[in-house]
């Protein structure tokens, strides 16, 4: 049958044509499948390429990160092995004012370039020093050792430091909420409570903060000229201090801090006074704070201190024991991160004539450009009955610029 068909030309051609057609159709179909396969493979190749590129990129990124981490680790290790790594932390505060006084005139006052260094001495103590340069010269304001691991909640401090008398006397002036040192602090305490000596503090085991301090010093007060700091003396001519300070959280946002201080010098002999006598310097300080925890950089601080001084002083009628009382009060409202405004009232008696006083009233406005850069404007009206210094009379304007460089913290005492 097949041979018969094959022998016939027409059917043979038809069969051949059909076979060819089938073959070509199949070939065409195979071609299109191949094409699609090729396209698929190509697509997969591209995807693979992209994936490989991504892997390469990630590897490189990982390598870069790892290299950077290595670099950081190496630099840290290098730093740690270098002797400089054991150097103290260093910081500087620069404080300058432009001042205009209605009676004394104006001046640019380079108040302070204060360099502070601080570091652990060993596992048992920390050391710090504050060097202050101003237009009056350079001096060591503080250089002290503080113990860090005494038992029974005790802490000792020795060297030159701002003694634990009152609150504001322990501040360096650039840390005040206002521009000038209150005259009451200047006249009664002698400015900052700078002292050469030794102190021992005890933290009471009470549920609230209660701390007691006793100290012994050559004398107390940066401007205190009663005794020569460099001369040896009998025990009765040292100054002995006791202070008790406490703090209470009224609520999460409101707190009260209360302190009382007494600095007693058993014997001071002033030239011309054959009798001599003791000096008692007392202080009472109260600070109220409203610090809303959930609201950043806002709050109110009200601080007040009362000082009392009892000693024999020279008057027209001769030497007599005089008791002078004075103090200051201020309120500061922190409005936001940049702005704060407040008011300072100061009541400063003359020590020899306590009836004569200088009252001053000073509103101030602070602009914190950043945490380390601050401008402050203050106006002061001084009603002066003491009339010893014309710079302490009439109206005063201050523009203060204070900056901090590097590590700078005076710690717990100036919170």
């Amino acid at each position: 049958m097949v041979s018969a068909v094959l022998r016939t030309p027409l059917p043979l051609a038809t069969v051949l044509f059909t076979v060819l057609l089938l073959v070509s159709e199949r070939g065409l179909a195979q071609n299109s499948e191949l094409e699609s396969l090729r396209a698929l493979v190509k697509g997969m190749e591209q995807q693979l390429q992209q994936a490989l590129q991504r892997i390469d990129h990630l590897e490189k990124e990982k390598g870069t990160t790892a290299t950077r981490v290595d670099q950081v680790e190496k630099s840290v290790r290098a730093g740690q092995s270098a002797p400089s790594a054991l150097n103290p932390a260093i910081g500087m505060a620069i404080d300058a004012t432009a001042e205009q006084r209605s009676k004394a005139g104006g001046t640019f006052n380079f108040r302070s370039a204060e360099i502070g260094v601080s570091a652990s001495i060993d596992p048992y103590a920390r050391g710090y020093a504050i060097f202050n340069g101003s237009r009056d010269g350079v001096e060591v304001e503080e250089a002290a050792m503080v113990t860090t691991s005494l038992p029974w909640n005790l802490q000792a401090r020795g060297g030159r430091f701002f003694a634990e008398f009152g609150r504001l006397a322990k501040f360096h002036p650039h840390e005040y909420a206002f521009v000038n040192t209150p005259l009451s602090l200047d006249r009664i305490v002698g400015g900052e409570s700078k002292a050469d000596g030794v102190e021992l503090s005890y933290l009471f085991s009470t549920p609230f903060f209660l701390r007691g301090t006793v100290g012994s010093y050559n004398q107390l007060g940066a401007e205190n000229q009663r005794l020569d700091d460099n001369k040896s003396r009998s025990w009765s001519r040292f100054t002995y201090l006791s202070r008790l300070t406490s703090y209470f959280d009224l609520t999460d946002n409101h707190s009260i801090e209360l302190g009382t201080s007494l600095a007693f010098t058993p014997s001071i002999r002033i030239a011309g006074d054959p009798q001599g006598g003791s000096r008692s310097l007392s202080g009472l300080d109260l600070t109220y704070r409203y610090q809303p925890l959930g609201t950043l950089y806002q709050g109110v601080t009200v601080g007040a201190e009362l000082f009392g001084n009892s000693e024999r002083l020279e008057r027209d009628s001769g030497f007599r024991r005089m008791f002078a009382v004075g103090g200051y009060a201020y309120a500061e409202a922190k409005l936001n991160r940049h702005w704060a405004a407040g008011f300072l009232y100061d009541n400063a008696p003359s020590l020899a004539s306590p009836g004569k006083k200088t009252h001053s009233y000073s509103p101030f406005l602070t602009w914190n450009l950043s945490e380390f850069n601050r401008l402050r404007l203050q106006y002061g009206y001084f009603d002066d009955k003491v009339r010893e210094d014309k710079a302490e009379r009439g109206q005063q304007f201050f523009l203060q610029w204070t900056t901090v460089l590097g590590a700078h913290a005076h710690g717990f005492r100036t919170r």
Partner: protein
Amino acid sequence: MQWKRRLILSAVIFVSLFRFASGAQAQPIRVVTTIPDLADITKQVGKELVEVESLTRGVEFMHAVPVKPSFVPKLNRANILVAVGLDLEISWLPALLEPASNPKIMPGQPGHIDCSTGISVIDVPKSLDRAEGDVHPKGNPHYNLDPLNGKIIARNIADGLARNYPQHKAQFEKNLAIYLAELDKAIARWQGMAAPLKGAKFVAYHSDWAYFANRFGLQQVGSIEVKPGIEPTPNHLVGLAQKMQQERIPLIIYGPQSDRYPKQLAGQSGASVVRLQSISGGAAEADSYLKFIEHNLKSLLAAMKKS
């Protein structure tokens, strides 16, 4: 006289028994933590063996915590101090440790647990200069926002407690395993929840959220602060608003800062504003570490829906 002897003997026995009984009652380990996250995790690891208190409540901005003297007695009595580390607490904790007179919790001592040990720190600055703002020399310290870091925190706390109280090590390890399993389960759920956040761009007030963004696939493209800790200038805000409009950035995230600038930017760009917690405890619905992460995720998802 006989009755007197009996009375004295009875008193001695009574006192001895009382002393024995009171001695048998183990005192809990007093732990103070700097943030509520660490207090919660310490409770989970220490359970009934610890008495934990956090110094901060969770509403504070960690770079501006008030130095409260009331923290001093707490630190004085603490057996263990647990801190975030990486200098997050630098502005307030060192000032409190000195008057606290408690050498055993000072940095480097066994009683001081630094939870940053073993954390892969990001944003380590290439150079240290205050012209770059308030930079963190050791890198971004807000690692608690990544729940995987929560596992490292828990491990560090368990190790630290065991270092000081080896007699309870087995108990700490057992509690840790339970907590880590709970955390793993939550992390798997959060990864699923966070799917819509993948690739979402956002502007942050401060760079608190880098670890959180890395974990859940968000992308920070700008910040309201000019530099860390430096408040924005008007020009910076105008430029940022333009960028947000051009790039259609849907989210503005802020934390304990004022909402003034975020809302102003949102008004100009049409983005959603969301306030997140950078530590736990700041809101009732974020009073534990697990709830805090979940609260942040839910807040973000809700804000994404609005945008």
